[in-house]
């Protein structure tokens, strides 16, 4: 197992990197970070490399955005104009997709890693100002991040003329206040500008006109943290992990009835089976389905066929789902699929921003009413047809992908567990009886 690409966390060549220090005492402090080689990479980059070289290196690594969409990070960076205007780098730390909680521990336990990543990113794109948009509920992460920024600023790692390179970079943290849509990059910018967080029209894309109308790039926490290691150990090191088009390591999350639910850093291409059984300790009760990549990704049956899928972008697309943010949720046999999906639909209904018709009236208005009808046992076959029609009318028609994100879980459920919906229609109740789950 020591040649070829690394596609298992058990490969001896693999060691946790992004999470190497998570959970260590005082890991969030500057002294700790410095003792473990902190800010050396930024220094080397700022004093030894041209911005373009950084962009090239990141491109070469094959890093794809970890915020869910998987867009190649280096390519995104190369969209930034070279125009001498104020540029911004925004770190998307909104992390509001149900089943995702990976970015949180980077900020709580290793905030300097993120800061260093942002310095490098800022340098690569001539962005002298950065914002971390952090979801409002992450109090601890916020406090640690702000403290870390303070420390870094004090040491001259932020501010003017970093490492004598002549490059200025400063960083601020802006807290959200409970709105999932703020994770969408243009809504995030509106929120940062003090406007209602409705998504903006694209084009213009953020790289042309983003925050305050200036060229802006938005990256996920994990993406930016990964950059530190790519620049430290090289694109080739990064690219040796993972599959053909999904490179590097990734933070996977497991929640639901597993023995050790949590975050696991593994190479891209690791199988669900390895994640769930070998790392998360396996389920604590019989499982019938799992959500592979966060609440918006269509669920898959908990069967050998799907458990053996490698966790990379392409394999999941082939399985008619998506890798998303890598948040796996185990759904036990004793829980009704209609009930579980209804929970997610309620989430999307609650989080719709209300800007466009299909999302406001469809996702937020009509779908919940249909689901309620199923829950009350009053749904008919016609309702199921209506629901499917409605999904057709919503999907691909909304202003931003939030509405699609609400459609997909239902699609997955109907694809694999249609009989549970039919059971609701024919028997007026759930196909399974769930006992109390609270301990």
């Amino acid at each position, binding site marked *: 197992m020591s040649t070829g690409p690394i596609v298992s966390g058990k490969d001896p060549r693999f060691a946790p990197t992004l999470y190497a220090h998570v959970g260590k005492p005082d890991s969030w402090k500057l002294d700790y970070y410095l003792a473990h080689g902190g800010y050396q990479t930024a220094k080397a980059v700022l004093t030894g490399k041209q911005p373009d070289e950084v962009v090239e290196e990141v491109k070469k690594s094959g890093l794809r955005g970890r915020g869910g969409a998987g867009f190649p990070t280096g390519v995104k960076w190369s969209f930034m104009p070279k125009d001498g205007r104020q540029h911004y780098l925004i770190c998307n730390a909104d992390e509001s997709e149900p089943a995702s909680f990976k970015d949180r521990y980077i900020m709580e336990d290793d905030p300097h890693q993120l800061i260093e990543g942002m310095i490098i990113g800022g340098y690569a794109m001539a962005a002298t100002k950065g914002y971390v948009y952090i979801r409002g509920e992450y109090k601890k992460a916020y406090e640690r991040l702000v403290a870390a920024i303070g420390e870094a600023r004090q040491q001259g790692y932020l501010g003017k003329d970093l490492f004598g390179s002549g490059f200025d970079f400063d960083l601020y943290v802006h807290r959200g206040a409970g*709105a999932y849509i703020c994770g969408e990059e243009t809504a995030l910018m*509106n929120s940062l*500008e003090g*406007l*209602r967080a409705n998504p*903006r*029209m694209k*084009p213009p894309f953020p790289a042309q006109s983003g925050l305050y109308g200036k060229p802006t790039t938005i990256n996920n926490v994990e993406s930016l943290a990964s950059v530190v290691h790519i620049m430290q150990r090289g694109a080739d090191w990064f690219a040796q992990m993972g599959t053909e088009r999904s490179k590097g390591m990734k933070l996977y999350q497991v929640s639901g009835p597993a023995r050790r639910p949590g975050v696991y850093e593994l190479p891209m291409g690791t199988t669900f089976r390895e994640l769930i059984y070998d790392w998360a300790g396996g389920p604590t009760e019989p499982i019938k389905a799992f959500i592979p990549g966060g609440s918006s990704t269509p669920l898959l049956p908990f069967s050998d066929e799907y458990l053996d899928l490698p966790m990379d972008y392409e394999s999941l697309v082939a399985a008619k789902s998506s890798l998303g943010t890598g948040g796996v949720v185990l759904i036990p046999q004793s829980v009704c699929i209609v009930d579980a999906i209804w929970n997610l639909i309620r989430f999307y*209904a*609650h*989080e*719709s*921003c*209300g*800007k*466009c*018709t*299909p999302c*406001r*009236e*469809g996702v*937020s*208005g*009509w779908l919940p*009413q249909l689901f309620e009808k199923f829950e009350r046992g009053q749904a008919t076959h*016609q309702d199921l047809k*209506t629901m499917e*029609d409605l999904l*057709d*009318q919503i999907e*691909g*028609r*909304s*202003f931003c992908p939030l509405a699609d994100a609400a459609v997909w879980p239902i699609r997955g459920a109907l694809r694999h567990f249609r009989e549970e919906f039919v059971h609701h229609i024919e028997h007026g109740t759930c196909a399974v009886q769930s006992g109390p789950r609270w301990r």
Partner: protein
Amino acid sequence: MPKVKVNDRTVEVPPGTSAMDAIFHAGYDVPLFCAERHLSPTGSCRMCLVKAGSPRKGPDGEWIKDESGEIKIFWFPKLMASCTLAVSEGMVIDTLSDEVRHAQSGMVELTLANHPLDCPTCDKGGACDLQDRAYEYGLEQKFYTGPTGEPVYTRYEFSKRHVDKHHPLSEFIILDRERCIHCKRCVRYFEEIPGDQVLDFIERAVHTFIGTADEGLPSNFSGNITDICPVGALLDRVARFRGRNWEFEQTPSVSTEDASGQYVWIDARSGRIERIRARENPELNDIWISDAARFGHEWVDQDRVTTPLVRKGGSLEPASWEEALAAMQKGLEGVPQERVGLLLPGDATIEEGMAAAELAKTLGSGYLDFEGRSAVPASNFPAATFADLLEADYILTIGDPTEELPLSHVWIYKRLRGVKTPPRLNHGTPIADLSIREHTPPDRSLLGAFAPYPTRVMEWAEAKGVFEPGQASALLGAIDALLAGRDAPRVAGVDAGALKQAAQRWRKAKKRVLLLGAEVLNDVEAAQLAEKLAKSQGALVLAMTPAANARGLEAMGVWPSGDKMPRALLAAADNPPQLLLDLAEFKVFHAARLSEVVRQHADVVLPAKTSYEKLGTLLNVENRLLELRPAHVEAGEAEGLIQVIYLFAQALGVKSSLRLVRQARARFTERYKINLDKLEEFGQVWRPRVSLSPRPRQGEGGNLYLRPSMWKSRHLLGETVQRALGTLTLAAHPQTALAEGLDVGATITLQTPWGTQAARLEFDDELPKGWFFLPALGSNPGARVPFKALVPEGGEAR
């Protein structure tokens, strides 16, 4: 220019055009709710989905071809909202396929999901975009079949969202939240056109609703949201429940509420004006009108004079025209002809002005005047057009554009937001202009604003200042000095830095526009300095006189010359100066309603047509000829001024050659080679040569400043306007008021040379000390007059 293929037709449109506009330009239709001319496209209703694709170029720079050698079209993976999609060379757009129609019908269905079906009681019925589209798409049986295959027209069987159905946003506008389809037009409108952030979405998701947390809506441009609301969610409260859309006779005309000549539709029913709406004029008012132009019509059918009246034994009695003529002959007997005066309303037409000037000349009378005349003729200044404001790289306002020339407020804000003149397409103004962007902050460096009190446009100005009433000449003198490189004398209240900044920007600018208010136009010295500023530096001017047709009347020679006060008077104005009324022995009024002044002073009253009922021509502030057209209003024997002048001449025993508008127009054509019957669609610029000398106004002096206001006293006769404006406010710096023994909130009766007025005292510490400010209500904006304040009990406060 990109070539775009819409279904089977290929059209060329300017780069940056939206797919939606390309579709309309090609003569096809696409449904829409949220897109609206002059507002930023948002793509939120998703109604305008189309299928679109474009060719791509290969690495060799050639179009990529398909197997059959045709240029290959790469279709977008999803349907696209055509309002937010920019065209590109070779783009192909399909609006007719089943896929597209199906998606659009889905959006209609979703839009209707929570929309009440109360069309029978909705004012918008018959003119509702949603109703039309529901009718068009509602019969898509294919997708709406019941269990046994029978057509089903709705499958939305849940109870609709129930929210506030009668939510007054202001006295003028009522909101039905259930009907709102969240197109956001109204919100974008307020933010982008008048620049007020007073309306917004509240809450989110399906609970989102329109609301305001400020006190009502500012009533300058609020009414436009009732025009652009695609459904019946926002309604004009003056017009509510006064008729169905198909019952109105709609007359295209022009508003005479101010000197801009906004294009309006007058909707009348059974001889009564029920509603006024904006009429599009892309060169003038786009699709917007001021609230005064929209809501200020209620007085028209109140207290209407419908027959001639003659004073008999102290009271005015109905009479025939013959009797009126006889009474006039009798009253005018013995009055020397040169002592007969003519006072016109500020909105008298060019045709009427021509007749009046002819008569005055025949009589040899020097008292030929019009209401709202400024001391210095507006014609002295090189006129700017509103469109010039979009080109300007510096705008300097001395006065209060928002109140004095409401439209200029809108154009100034357009300029500051960087809006460009849109192209004209086959269907007119682009519906989704992609160059307009939401949340664009105004560029303050383009505007300097000075006035004797804080004005709305000052909020957008980098250089600004409040000077004392009467100090406009000091201000202009200081600017003049700065421009000449001299040290400027201090202007009390104005920050020297701000003045310097304004002068600097002015000097650097290539295209300058100067807006002058009553404060300058009525101060001969200030006006002359302003004229110098404009002429020596090459600036264009919007002279904001309160008279709708000041330039037209001046061009016809309606301007006083002698110093003798008339002994007999034909007064067609609302509020003639008190002195004039006191000195004239015999007074004929041409009036539409029996105001207090008329009741008190008239010897003979002749029933007048209002400007809503006349045919005639105006020359607006930009020197644009505009045509007034008569709406059908039931007004008894009311006659136009031209006929009345003819009769008045007859009573004087002289001959007038103009008895009909037609005759005046013929004379105009003869003189100026312009046919007023065939003006261009959006009005026609005409630059008459006028040379008149300044005529200072009388009765100045005192510390009550009559602040310009969009609203006129006649508007207050309307119930709604009355409620909206409430009691007038008398504003003063707290120190000034307290020194006079007046405290905040006190209700005061004011005696001024312009009549008696009730007002409530309010403090405003941004006002210059030593002055009181009262809305002029049309009588004499910018005048500084003495006043007496009486507290309600009749006790004298000072």
